[in-house]
C-alpha cells in the first residue's frame, strides 16, 4: 500500500469524491436504495482503506459537501453531521489499515472496516446529541437511526467493500498488501 505515489493517491481520492456524487444519483432509480444502501459511504471507506487517513478524511469531508452543492443531496440540514460521520469513517479506516498488519488482507480490511463503522456512528451520535440536535436527541433515536434502519446497508457494505478493495488489488490498480 505504501508504494503508491502521492499523485496516484490524490487521483484515487478525486475519483472517490466524484463517486460520492455519482453513486447516489445512480441508486436513485431504485426505490429506497439510497437510504438502504447508503451509497455515499462506499467510496469513503474504499478511499480510507486504499489511500490512508489524510485522503480518507478529505474524501469524507469533500464528498457529501460536493454532492450537496451539485445535486442538493444530502439536504443542507443533514450535511454537517453526515460530513463528521463520513470523515471519521475515512480517517479511522485509513489509520487502522496503516497500523494493522495481521498477515491476511481480508482480516485487516474487516477489522478496519468494522472499527471505522463503530467510531463513525459513535461520533455522529455524539455530534447530533451535543451540537446539531442538542436536547432533542435520544439514545433510542441513535440506535434506531444508526443500527436498525441501516442494518441491511451495513451488511451489504461488509460484503461489498473488501471485495472491491481486493478486486482493485487483483487488477493491479492498487498494490497488493502482502505479496502474491
Amino acid at each position, binding site marked *: 500500500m505504501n508504494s503508491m*505515489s*502521492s*499523485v*496516484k493517491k*490524490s*487521483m*484515487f*481520492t*478525486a*475519483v472517490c*469524491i*466524484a*463517486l460520492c*456524487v*455519482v*453513486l447516489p*444519483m*445512480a*441508486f436513485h*432509480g*431504485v*426505490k*429506497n*436504495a439510497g437510504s*438502504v*444502501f447508503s*451509497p455515499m459511504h*462506499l467510496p469513503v471507506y*474504499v478511499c480510507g482503506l486504499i489511500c490512508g487517513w489524510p485522503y480518507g478524511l*478529505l474524501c469524507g469531508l*469533500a464528498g457529501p459537501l*460536493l454532492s*450537496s*452543492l*451539485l445535486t*442538493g443531496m444530502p*439536504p*443542507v*440540514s443533514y450535511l454537517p453531521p453526515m460530513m463528521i460521520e463520513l470523515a471519521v469513517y475515512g480517517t479511522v479506516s485509513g489509520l487502522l489499515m496503516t497500523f494493522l498488519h495481521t498477515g491476511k488482507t481480508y482480516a485487516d480490511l474487516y477489522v478496519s472496516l468494522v472499527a471505522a463503522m463503530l467510531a463513525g456512528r459513535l461520533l455522529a451520535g455524539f455530534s447530533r446529541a451535543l451540537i446539531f440536535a442538542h436536547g432533542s436527541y435520544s439514545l433510542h433515536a441513535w440506535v434506531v437511526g444508526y443500527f436498525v434502519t441501516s442494518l*441491511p*446497508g451495513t*451488511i*451489504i457494505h461488509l*460484503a*461489498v467493500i473488501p*471485495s*472491491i478493495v481486493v*478486486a*482493485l488489488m487483483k*487488477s493491479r*490498480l*492498487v498494490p497488493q498488501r502482502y505479496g502474491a
Partner: protein
Amino acid sequence: MTDGIFDARTKLLCFLLFVTAVIEAGTFLPFLVLVVLLFPASRCAGLCAHDFFRPLASLWQFFLLVWLMNAFFSTDARPLWHWWIFNLTEEGTIQGLLVVLRVLLIVEAGAIYTASSSTKESVGAINWTLTPLSLFRVPVGEISLIIGSALQFVPMLQEETERIKKAQKARGAVFGGKNLIKRAKSMIPLLLPVFLRAFSHADALATAMEARGYQSGGRRTKRKRPPFSLCDKLALSGGMILVVFCYLA
C-alpha cells in the same frame, strides 16, 4: 457566464456570504430580501427557469415532510388544532416554513454558483480561499487539485455508470425488487465494474501526470491574479451588508 464581470473569488465569497446571511436570517423580511435577490443573480448566471426550479421539483417531498413535522409535532406552543399525537401550532407552521426556505435558498445559491463558474475558475477560487491554511502546513495545492479533478470526473463517471447499468441490464441484471436486502444486493453487479472503471481512469491520469513530471507538494508557478475590480468590491460590500442586515433584522 463563466467569463462574466465578476472574478471567480468574488463569486465564491459572495456565495459564502449569502449562505451566512441565510443562516443568520430569522424573520420573514430578510428571507424576502434573499428570495428577491436570487432572481437577478440566476439571470446573471444564465440559469434557465427549468434549472432554477429543478431543486424545488426534486426535493418537494423532503420540504413537505420537514414542514409537516414542524407544523404538527411542535409541543412548545398552544395548539390551534389537536388530534391524537398531532398538534397544529402557529409557531410550528412558521418554523417549518423558515426551515424549508433556508434549505431551498442555500440549494438555489449553490445552483447559481455552479452555473456561473467553470470548474477551472472554481478550483482557482477554492485554492485562493484556502491559502491561509497553508500557514498551518495544510497542503492547499493538493486539496484544490483533488477537488478540481473530482469535479472533472463527475460527468465522465455519470456517463460511465449509465453505460455499465445498461450493459448489466442487457446481461439480465434486475435492479430493484420488493425485499430490501434483495433490492440492495441487486446493485452489486453495478458497483464492482463502476469502481474498477473509475480507478483505471484515475490510474491513467496519475501516470500521465507523473510522466510529465508532476510532483505533489512541489513549488509551481501560477498566473498572477488581477486585483479585485470595482464591480467585485461592490458585490463583496453588498454581501457583507446583507449579512449584517440579516443579523440585525
